[in-house]
């Protein structure tokens, strides 16, 4: 039989694969993060305009990438869960949300710390900043829907609809800097015609990006495992409560 995504729908099989993959994901995170931070803090030049503050960028820019990436994962997993009713897709979408929200918050906070010396203000109401803030609220709304509905199947479907609707915001954020003349600098890494920043700065940037990506994969896998375990526990307790109820009846 050809292996497919449906093989992962079996929680036990998923758990087996996840347990095998986790040490590698954690190791990759640690190695990349150590290398990335070394390059970012010690082995890269200070910017001729920004000075040492440019080093905040190595934390900030990959966090902003991840903020968008996590939401894309949620929307994609939601679509898979909604269309094919893949049970693990819903769990993945649910568990990716807090991680994505944390990356968004990290991007907002580091951006603000960088903005104070560079722009002279903690916050500016320009297109990029505002739309990332909107993204943060989208994450909050998405997580609230999951919490509001006691029935998990219904919560999964409704949260999926909201995630897909909210996905409209992602291209707006990506292109906001080009569409509106904003204070935030235009894209300098992923753009047509190649990156406009120097190679010495790209190395730590990509190392940190890779570290964040593996961090996301590791935390997502672990949260999915604990969510599945929690669901199993709730189910067992329900069965247990029901059987003791039967005993009392007798």
């Amino acid at each position, binding site marked *: 039989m050809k292996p497919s995504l449906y093989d992962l729908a079996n929680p036990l099989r998923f758990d087996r694969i996840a347990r095998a993959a986790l040490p590698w994901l954690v190791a990759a995170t640690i190695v990349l993060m150590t290398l990335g931070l070394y390059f970012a803090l010690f082995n890269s030049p200070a910017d001729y305009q920004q000075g040492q503050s440019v080093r905040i960028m190595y934390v900030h820019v990959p966090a902003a990438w991840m903020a968008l990436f996590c939401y894309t994962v949620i929307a994609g997993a939601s679509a898979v869960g909604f269309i094919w009713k893949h049970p693990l897709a819903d769990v993945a979408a649910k568990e990716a949300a807090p991680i994505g929200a944390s990356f968004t918050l990290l991007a907002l906070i580091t951006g603000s710390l960088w903005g104070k010396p560079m722009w002279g203000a903690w916050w500016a109401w320009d297109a990029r900043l505002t739309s990332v803030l909107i993204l943060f609220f989208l994450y909050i709304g998405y997580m609230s829907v999951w919490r509001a509905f006691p029935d998990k199947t219904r919560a999964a479907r*409704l949260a999926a609809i909201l995630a897909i609707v909210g996905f*409209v915001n992602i291209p707006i954020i990506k292109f906001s800097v080009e569409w509106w003349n904003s204070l935030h600098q235009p894209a300098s890494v992923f753009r047509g015609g190649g990156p406009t920043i120097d190679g010495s700065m790209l190395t730590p940037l990509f190392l940190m990006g890779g570290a964040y990506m593996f961090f996301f994969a590791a935390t997502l896998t672990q949260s999915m495992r604990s969510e599945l375990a929690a669901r199993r526990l709730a189910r067992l307790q329900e069965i247990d409560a029901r059987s003791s109820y039967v005993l009392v009846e007798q």
Partner: protein
Amino acid sequence: MNGRQAIILRDVRLAFRAGGGSFQAVAFFSVVCVLFALAAGPDLRLMSKIAAPVVWTAALLATLISLDQIYRADREDGSLDVIVATSDELALTAAAKAAAHWLSTGVPLIVATPLLGLLMNLEAGAYAPLMLSLVIGTPALSLIGAFAAALTVSLPRANLLISLIVSPLYMPILIFGAGAASAGAAGDPQYAANLKLLSAATLFAAITAPLASAAALRSNLD
């Protein structure tokens, strides 16, 4: 008269009769404007500068508090189950519900706007851009809001959750709407651009929100 027209007519009638939501929405809209004015102080120059954004924010808030009503009564008396079970095209019915909400909330707000503009020292040249931006933008508020109401219809009380869901989706509408109103008053060339983006947002909401509402209603009632 087909079913969807009947739904619109019934919802609008209910909203305008005693105890209906239209009057309350307009009253709330005015109260928010007055609260802003009181908080900002008696400086008339400042007032005329912030009048358009304040009116836009108040219209958004007045829409927000009326959203929970869209499907609530239908849900409680069981007619929503009938609507979902018998509708040949549920998305179009959801669009009819949103249209009824706009007719009973959005339109009264627009009608009340000139009076509030007068109170808030709105400049003579600022009335037309403000009204035009509201006419184009408030349907999007009703459409997106009706989607949030559909999403939360099976919950006993959903006002807070609706606000949380809808606020990020409303932000672009508010930015373009208030932006168009201010740019139009100042004679800024950004006026046309903002109006076009606002129209695009409304059209996009008109297509996607009813489809999403239909999916949400079905998921809530199964």
